[in-house]
């Protein structure tokens, strides 16, 4: 063994060299496990079935099919991605600990942040593989026409970002929890909290925001020349209870579906007969923007005035959502990094270092 080539005193490990090495180590292991490929095939088949069914059912409807199929595909990919990402990420650290390979990393010049960053990137890239596997179906929907290329690109980018956030939550949890089973379940619960919990919280807390406002007792509407609803208000003002949803709309922001839906730029596309269709993601976005606008916008004849219920003039809510989700992920990763610090002072009960 020659010792000339190695000079122990001058040995250092650059930040990105360390991250890259951990990343390569993780990816190699994932690419060599058959499970990942089986999941990919299952994924491809399921997304393909969803796409085929959607295409069949929407061909019966009028209007351009592209947006309907595309937005539904985006919704499904996000849904399945949220189900998949925790499984791919939430055992990254404690799984290694159980296998006895974490200490082998910790004994090297790696710092905790590098281990977490490398593992996060690897789980993100692994989950992006599933996004790539669904691209053929998205392209199919694009080929049907009616989808803005920009919208298509934004949707895919935002799907990737959401997967990255869930992976970060998973990797952070896996560093915090002693057992893989626990961290995977908790990550699923956190994803459910974002996906369903936000809806439930919004729904329940909307009762707390109920206020009494005055509105015309009788409203009627007709379609104007440009196809937009026009209200006419008559009758005396009466008390009406409305929920001031604009105060709690921010809760919805943390929902991954809202973030993706709200970030996709939409432009109404009409076919040759003048029919327009609304995709599911655009629908979500519209509902959220109505909640953001509150009764001033959604309640016709508030205070006897026929308000503008056409265009909703509210700021996009997805940056807030990304911020909330990112803060959650960052918090978990930072707490997890503390757990990975060595020499260990307090050891979680039931765990070994090696």
């Amino acid at each position, binding site marked *: *063994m*020659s*010792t000339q*080539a*190695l000079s*122990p*005193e001058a*040995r*250092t*490990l*650059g930040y990105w*060299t*360390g991250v890259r*090495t*951990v990343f*390569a*180590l993780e990816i*190699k*292991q994932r690419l*060599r*496990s058959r499970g990942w490929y089986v999941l990919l095939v299952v994924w491809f088949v399921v997304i393909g079935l969803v796409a085929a069914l959607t295409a069949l059912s929407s061909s019966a409807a009028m209007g351009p099919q592209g947006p309907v199929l595309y937005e539904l595909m985006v919704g499904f990919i996000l849904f399945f991605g949220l189900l998949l990402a925790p499984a791919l990420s939430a055992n990254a650290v404690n799984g*290694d600990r159980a*296998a*006895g*390979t*974490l*200490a*082998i*990393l*910790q*004994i*090297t*010049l*790696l*710092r905790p942040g590098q281990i977490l960053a490398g593992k996060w990137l690897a789980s993100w890239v692994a989950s992006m593989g599933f996004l790539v596997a669904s691209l053929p179906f998205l392209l199919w929907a694009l080929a049907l026409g009616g989808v803005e290329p920009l919208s298509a690109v934004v949707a895919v980018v935002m799907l990737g970002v959401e997967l990255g956030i869930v992976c970060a939550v998973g990797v952070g949890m896996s560093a915090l929890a002693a057992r893989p089973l626990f961290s995977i379940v908790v990550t699923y619960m956190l994803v459910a909290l974002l996906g369903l919990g936000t809806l439930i919280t919004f729904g329940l807390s909307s009762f707390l925001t109920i206020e009494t406002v005055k509105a015309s007792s009788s409203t009627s509407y007709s379609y104007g020349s440009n196809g937009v609803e026009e209200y006419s208000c008559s009758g005396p003002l009466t008390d009406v209870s409305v929920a001031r949803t604009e105060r709690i709309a921010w809760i919805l922001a943390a929902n991954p579906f809202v973030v993706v839906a709200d970030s996709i730029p939409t432009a109404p596309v009409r076919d040759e007969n003048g029919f327009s269709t609304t995709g599911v993601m655009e629908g979500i976005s519209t509902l959220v923007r109505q909640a953001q606008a509150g009764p001033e916008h959604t309640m016709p004849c508030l205070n006897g005035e026929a308000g503008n219920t056409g265009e909703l003039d509210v700021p996009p809510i997805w940056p807030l959502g990304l911020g909330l989700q990112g803060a959650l992920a960052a918090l978990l990763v930072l707490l997890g990094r503390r757990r990975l610090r*060595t*020499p*260990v*002072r307090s*050891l979680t*009960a039931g765990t*070994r*270092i*090696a």
Partner: protein
Amino acid sequence: MDNSAGDHSAGTGVVAAGIRRSFGSVEAVRRMDFTAPAGEVTALIGPNGSGKTTLLLILASLLAPDAGSVRINGYDPVANPLEVRAGIGWMPDTLGTWGSLTAREILVTVAGLYGIERSVAGVRAAGLLETVHLTDFADKPARVFSRGQQQRLSLARALIHDPSVLLLDEPASGLDPGSRVDLRALLRRLADEGKTVVVSSHVLSELDEMVDGAVFVARGETVKTQSLADAGAQERWYSIRSLNTGSLLRQVDELRIPYRQRGGADRPEVQVRLAGETAAAQLLRSLVQADVAVTAFAPAGGALEETYMSLDADRR
């Protein structure tokens, strides 16, 4: 050796003093002092659950002691973990490997984590695989390795960055006799190169042949620190066999040497308590002069085993 526990200026080897560490209510290490000078193989010996692995984890900079000071090559693992890690090679008692990676990939990856360039790492990995006789398995996934092969790979991994301090937790377990001889020769050679080698083991007879000193621990405490020279000088049992056990016993009786009889009727053996190697040489000479037909004359157990058993006696 003048590497006393308080002398940190030496800058080499391992010095730990007054180490304490508990896990919850369990005191794994209560009061341990441990010194392993450079250029020597130092054994860490103790029964199961005596705190050996905990001490090695503390020395390896993975676990912080509750109290006490540790210096590895002059660095404190708590304050300067990276400096410590650059200089230590650690082989854990629980084997963990990345099963889907090949032996070569594992070594090159770990080398990368010490900041060693890829080209250098490849050469170094090939050399170490040769050293631990895994060249034929270099490109096989670690999953298919036998326990002994994994153990050897783990040793190669611990050596990949040419550390000056080696901390080996039960390195010989699972090794076949040939690999044990190789391991002994390798550790001896590394020590002779000036490296600090710390070995924890239960196989005491093997340690006898390679260690320069030993630290005995029990119930989380250091109970004895012994150099091999001390071990040779200590009072111990020698076993003697003769063609005529009767005349052997008469002679031993005459010399008023305490003895006991061991072995069955087919392999009779007399064990005598002797004060050291000089006394042993004297007895052998007088037996031969008295025409006792001695066929075997040797220490009953290894020197370390002798010490271990004498310490172990008060455990029960």
